[in-house]
């Protein structure tokens, strides 16, 4: 599956500056259609209204965390195949293993750079 840069990407983070950073980085690597959500529940609502080709989510958010969002997405028949990358400051091995078990496609530890983001997106889409 090749990366389709025209697909819609949903960025989920409760820190507006981080959303802005990811949005800019995505723009630099060719993604223009980028939506945002401030937590898991808002993201879930948006995902049920619009089809996203990729979700990039933070872990630590209120009221619904990125980890809970991931489990909701993987438990939902219509959404379960959506590629999901966790971008987070949660760098304990237990977090990475739990996210992997829950079905995350890739995991980026903050702080990160454009190259890391691009390489993980490429890896998710098999490029």
């Amino acid at each position, binding site marked *: 599956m090749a990366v389709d840069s025209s697909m819609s990407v949903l960025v989920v983070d409760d820190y507006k*500056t981080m959303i*802005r*950073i990811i949005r*800019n980085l995505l723009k*630099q690597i060719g993604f223009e259609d980028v939506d945002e959500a401030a937590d898991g529940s808002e993201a879930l609502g948006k995902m049920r209204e619009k089809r996203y080709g990729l979700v990039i989510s933070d*872990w*630590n958010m209120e009221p619904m*965390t990125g*980890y*809970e969002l991931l489990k909701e997405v993987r438990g939902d028949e219509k959404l379960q195949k959506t590629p999901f990358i966790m971008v987070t*400051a*949660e*760098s*304990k*091995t*237990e*977090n*990475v*293993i*739990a996210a*992997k078990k829950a079905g995350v496609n*890739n*995991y*980026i*530890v*903050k702080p*990160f750079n454009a190259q*890391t983001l691009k390489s993980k997106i490429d*890896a998710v889409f098999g490029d």
Partner: protein
Amino acid sequence: MPQTRRQTYDSILGHLRANGKNDPSLGDVVALARIASESMQQFIHNMDAAVNRELRGIADYIVTMKQEIGVFQANDIKDSRIPAAGQELDAVVQSTEQATNSIMECAEEILAADTSNPEAYQSLVNDKVMQIFEACSFQDLTGQRVSKVVETLQTIEKRVGRLIDAVNAKDIDGVLSMAEEQRKKRKEMLMLNGPQLEGGGIDQTSVDELFK
């Protein structure tokens, strides 16, 4: 030397045996009462001294505690130091956010700039780079603010440590409110560990290894 109960009992028994009577007379009863009274007086005297010592110990402990609580300066910590540290941290968050936004605005303007006119483009880039340098000066101020907070924490740490030693404090369970307990459980359940200090978490290379 104070008489034990056994010695008192033996004295009474010895007195009765010495008189060789099964039915004690009034004199015997008075003698017994005197022995019993003497032994009780001794007992009460001993008990008074012990209770006195205990009470004096408790009073000394209370005086020491009052002194230590005074040295702890709880009101200074609650009314002055913690609120000031909170304000400093708020200011750090605010100035960091402002600086980040300024830097990002400059970068976005450079990326979106029209490159068809090299002179105008170079002028804009120079201007925006200068603004980025200016925005980076926040680091000096935030560094100073964070140092003040660290100093406050060190002061509190020293005072709490002294109080713990003075009262030989032991932690007890069940002091968290229901809301605090729920937050703690949620953090544990959802693994909300937050950013780790160096060596506390794994880096991107180790994360990648787990995905191979």
